[in-house]
């Protein structure tokens, strides 16, 4: 197991190098000149040329890449061309907020999703099942900007219980993570239900019931555990996606996450920020996938890695 994990981590290195080259080339293929964007319409052409030279944008791409990756390996990711703040700060200072939001949303998605899913499966073909699935369907279909604004209107404007924007304590986190978690919860509820239904009629469950096990133990210990694999996969994907920021939700709640930073940086062709941000997302995604693979073994002891 340890050897497997180590091997996966070592494999990360060539993967990230490949990704860094892809990122580097792709963002330079989209039209727009970072120097002109940074200096504005008032700048003379001479000034723009000077800035291109200062930033090395006049060099061939391989030279630019070597310079960038060389400095990055020493911890220098360059400075934002817009704010002049070091790119590592722009991203690093927003990362905790994004992690908090992603973790909180996944927690909500997990609790609500698995809860509704189990309920629906256990009460299969009753009104509870149908109600749960209609709610889940609505959850999948509701656009997050609409849900976010509705939550704000009810809880911030009408009731005045929760703040409508910014970050801070748990109260600031509740509405945005509910907005984000709702969609994921709906998806998880549906997957949990269908995968539970598949195992519900299995022989080992009949055996468990026959030996007189209480129903909640039958479902909780025997059925759910066998049904969890697709749910864990889905949770991993959702979490990986949330770590790359949730642009719409961040915008609606004016939440200082990475998603909004990335969108604004792309709009300004702020290469210094775009590059490490995308690289970080790739890294996080690979890492989450690794954790998901390990969780498979935890959830289902029949799975082993050598």
């Amino acid at each position: 197991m340890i050897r497997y994990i180590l091997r996966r981590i070592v494999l990360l290195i060539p993967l990230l190098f490949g990704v860094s080259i892809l990122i580097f080339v792709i963002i330079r293929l989209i039209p727009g000149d970072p120097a002109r964007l940074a200096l504005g319409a008032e700048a003379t052409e001479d000034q723009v040329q000077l800035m291109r030279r200062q930033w090395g944008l006049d060099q061939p791409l391989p030279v630019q890449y070597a310079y960038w990756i060389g400095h990055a390996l020493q911890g220098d990711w360059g400075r934002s061309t817009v704010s002049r703040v070091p790119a590592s700060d722009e991203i690093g200072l927003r990362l905790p907020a994004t992690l908090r939001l992603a973790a909180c949303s996944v927690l909500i998605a997990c609790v609500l999703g698995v809860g509704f899913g189990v309920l629906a499966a256990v009460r299969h073909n009753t009104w509870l099942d149908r109600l749960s699935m209609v709610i889940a369907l609505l959850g999948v279909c509701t656009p997050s900007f609409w849900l976010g604004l509705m939550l704000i209107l009810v809880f911030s404007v009408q009731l005045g219980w929760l703040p409508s924007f910014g970050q801070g304590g748990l109260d600031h986190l509740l509405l945005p993570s509910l907005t984000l978690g709702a969609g994921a919860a709906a998806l998880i509820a549906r997957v949990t239900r269908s995968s539970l239904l598949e195992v519900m009629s299995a022989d080992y469950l009949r055996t468990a019931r026959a030996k007189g096990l209480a129903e909640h133990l039958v479902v909780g210990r025997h059925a759910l555990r066998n049904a969890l694999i697709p749910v864990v996969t889905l949770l991993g994907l959702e979490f990986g996606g949330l770590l790359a920021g949730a642009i719409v939700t961040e915008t609606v709640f004016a939440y200082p996450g990475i998603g909004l930073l990335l969108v604004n940086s792309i709009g300004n062709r702020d290469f210094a920020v775009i590059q490490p941000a995308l690289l970080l997302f790739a890294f996080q995604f690979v890492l989450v996938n690794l954790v998901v693979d390990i969780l498979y073994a935890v959830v289902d002891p029949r799975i082993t890695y050598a």
Partner: protein
Amino acid sequence: MAALLPNAQHTGVVLAVCRGGLTMDRVSEYGRLDEEWQRRGLDRRKFLRLVAMGASVPTLSAMIAACRQGAPASPPAAAGATQAPAAAAAPTFVAKTVGTPVVAVAPTSAPRVDRSFLVALNVEPDSLDVQDTFFNASLGVDKCLYEGLVGLDQSMQIVNQLADSWEPSADAKIFTFKLKQGIKFHDGTPFNGQAVQAAFERVLAPDAQLKRHGYFSAAIDHVEAVDDATVRLVTRQPFAALVATIAHPAGGMPSPTAFKQYGQDFGTHPVGTGPFKFAEWVRGDHITLDAFSDYWDKARGASVAHMSIKGISDPSSLAIAIQSGGAQFAGPLNAAQAQQLQSAVGVKVVESDSISVYWVTMNDQRKPFDNNLVRQALNYAINKDAVLKVAELGKGKIVDSPMAAGVWGYKSIKTYEYNPQKAKDLLAQAGLPDGFKTTLRFTAPSKDRAVAVQSQLQQIGVQVEAVQMEVPAYQAEESKPLEDSTTELLISNWSPSTGDADWALRSIYSKTQWPPAGANYGFYFNQQVEDLIMQGLQFTDEAKRRDAYARAQELIMDDAPNVFLYAPRYFSALRDNAAGAIMQADGIPYLRTAYYTS
């Protein structure tokens, strides 16, 4: 952000004098006062004309008095904690771009209370280095932190800040400023002639690549400190608009000790002389400023102990921030949100003039737009009121000059009325009876404008392909030199960054500003206009300057290089217990006088 990039900020000048004289808390009186203006049969334009003709000061005072009669003698009495600030003394009427100094008597500020004032803007500032930003949001915060030798008050009039007086040389090339004495920056560094010289040298150095380098270096050759109390700004060529140019917030004075110490990090460690000093910046979330207790002008210091600034880029969320009481001031709001907030409890919506102008750029060097008849036809073909209604819910003013009425030097020339038949006739005269095909480029915020223009041009047989582009790609295209340019039609906007006719006209209509050098994206050129714009920079006599610009405006309107549209209105909102913050006519939020009424 504006559709066009660095929505150049400006310093405006003559705004309605009646409004200019009001203290901020009376913004709610605006509507009523406006009515009063009308009843007295003296509209703003007539008033400006009077000023231009040299109405004497007593006459003006009488008019001010008249216009004030409707307003209460003092702001609504505060319930407890806060006293309302004293009313302004007679304001300066016309921004002096040259000549005698303005003696500004700004209203005194409300007594300070130990509370925090939360300002919600439509975008987070990018940098608080006053010489390194184009963002209106950043400049709004900068106006709390920094002051220039001269500055612009909330009604965009030039006021003395760190300078006591100034004197231009007869050839409009050397401007000598007398500085106030005994002022210190937030970090204790003394403010003096050397500090001014160091600040300008910082932005004038090409290697530093500060965003405002181009703005200042186009005008200023060098700056020399004569002694502690005197400084000389020397321009490259006669530059009569210099004072307006440095009154822009980018002319704020940064502490030389601080910018040397922090270098590239000065943008997150700003130090100036203003009524607020920088406390912290949680990036992506908020900026906090503290009242500066040693501010030099005791009567006009900060009225709240802390001010927080938060960027909320979703328009609905911005409106909700003020509606839910999370913020005390929110702006700029778009017309739809402002309308929606009108009915909200505990919120007052403020509507104000802008000096921003929208138009459709035509590539004047390209067929068929190189023909004056075609350009005029397009001007007649568009129902500007309809565009205004679609894009701004009808809130704005159809322009009758290449620049907005709030800009110094403005003259009402004419409007091309909506007349599709005449447009068709003109096209036929130009040899295009069946119209033609063309492409209109625009960025997302101008979508409504573009669609309205497209459908109206269709009526006269001009088939427009409307192409929405992302800002950087759009800018890359429009900035190409003439030989590579593919520009046909563009939705454009300009807000002249000095509030002076020079920057309103030169940047858009002078050949020196043809891309890639500047923003004359339509490649307009008329030698007479070129000469008049240059003349305007040489006179130190205001009347002569005005004449030159008036003639230039006439010529431009006749040439019809663009399809002239409108100047929109600006909206912001305050909680019922808050006052003293507003959107300036140039789109920069004015925040330093913010206070609580209860």
